[in-house]
């Protein structure tokens, strides 16, 4: 589904990603872990071109998105993104947040877009909030709306950038539950997270990024129980 080949990314003279290669299979749930500043968020943001890539290539669903000829908005419409700080549109209702993309990008009719939005809201348990504004929602509710907004585009892949890091602890569960359900339905997901429980339970594979490279990767059980590199051992000892 996603093939990343020798991805490099620099901000000025500072090289954040120093050659990352990886293959993500359809329906795979990949959790990306690593210390802060390791480049894991930058890696994720490169996957929908929120960061332009310095060198290397990324292919999603057979299309090389790093090709300069790529229609960038079109690529992004196929890749859902959920942000740490939700980034809902505060001047639009929950329903309008979700239908904007389908209406303007996919060219759906109002009825079609609204019907789909209502289905998604029912799925994340927020049917009663369709006409509410984001400011009246809790963090967990906002994030569930943000997930619905991304799903409304019928993405082939979903990217999550620390989706629970800005939430109060008691609200983390409701968001993870939605993500777990999504994974069980077969969505291809790349999740940058500090939720090791989620990575272990839902993840098919864990990638440990440190200092801009994939330091270690593999089955969650193996990564957490038998970390090979010293850096992963030390990272895990700090967070577990």
């Amino acid at each position: 589904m996603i093939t990343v080949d020798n991805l490099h990314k620099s901000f000025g003279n500072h090289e954040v990603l120093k050659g990352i290669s990886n293959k993500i299979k359809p329906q795979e749930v990949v959790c990306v872990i690593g210390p802060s500043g390791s480049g894991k968020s930058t890696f994720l943001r490169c996957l929908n071109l929120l960061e332009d890539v310095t060198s290397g290539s990324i292919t999603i669903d057979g299309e090389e998105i790093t090709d300069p000829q790529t229609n960038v908005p079109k690529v992004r419409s196929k890749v859902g993104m959920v942000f740490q700080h939700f980034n809902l549109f505060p001047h639009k209702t929950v329903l309008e947040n979700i239908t904007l993309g389908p209406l303007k990008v996919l060219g759906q009719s109002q009825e079609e877009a609204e019907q789909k939005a209502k289905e998604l809201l029912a799925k994340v348990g927020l049917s009663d909030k369709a006409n509410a504004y984001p400011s009246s929602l809790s963090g967990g509710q906002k994030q569930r709306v943000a997930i619905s907004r991304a799903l409304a585009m019928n993405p082939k892949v979903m990217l999550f950038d620390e989706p629970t890091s800005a939430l109060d602890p008691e609200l983390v569960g409701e968001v993870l539950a939605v993500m777990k359900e999504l994974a069980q339905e077969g969505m291809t997901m790349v999740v940058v997270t500090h939720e090791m429980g989620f990575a272990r339970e839902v993840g098919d594979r864990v990638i440990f990024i440190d200092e801009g490279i994939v330091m270690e990767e593999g089955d969650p059980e193996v990564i957490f129980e038998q970390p090979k590199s010293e850096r992963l051992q030390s990272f895990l000892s700090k967070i577990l």
Partner: protein
Amino acid sequence: MEHIINVLPSLLQGLKYTFIITVVGISIGFVIGAFAGLGRISKNKLIFGISTVYVEVIRGTPILVQILFIYFGLSDLLDINLDKITASIIAIAVNAGAYIAEIVRGGVESIDKGQFEAGDSIGLTKSQTMWYIIWPQALRRMIPPLGNQFIISLKDTSLFSAIAVGELLYEGRAYANSTFTYFEPFLMVALFYLAITIPASIILRRIERKLDV
């Protein structure tokens, strides 16, 4: 007292021109300012350059010089006969446009980066993100400074008496000079300005509250 009543017809006439020049000028100025303001945050160097030169030149010169330049200077250079009202509207539009450009830039730059990214992430183009996501939020924040600019431009029209535009101050002064009374006409001129600026302030505050989601 009789002067207060006698001056009214000419002041009403003057008020009409003051109002037309301000409203039409500011409206055009808003369009100019919207483009110039977006130009000031453009990554295109040419667009950025043109917008910046425009803002700096207009901000850096007095509006009285600008109206004289437009009315006499441009007419002379292009050998055309610009009428006074048109020249005044152009002067307000061009002048307010430069200040509004900075208001627009400030408004757009105050919007969280995450909003641009969220628009990008659902596949909106740059202009769609600007139009559907950024602009409505920025506009709300721009209302107080825009209201301020409206009032400033309204008062600036009084300077156009220098080219004998029959606006409020010109009419008041004409009455004063012809009757040799000065207190009542100028008092009334001041009250006429307040008669627009105070309701305008109230209306703007209402709009602001209404848009406050």
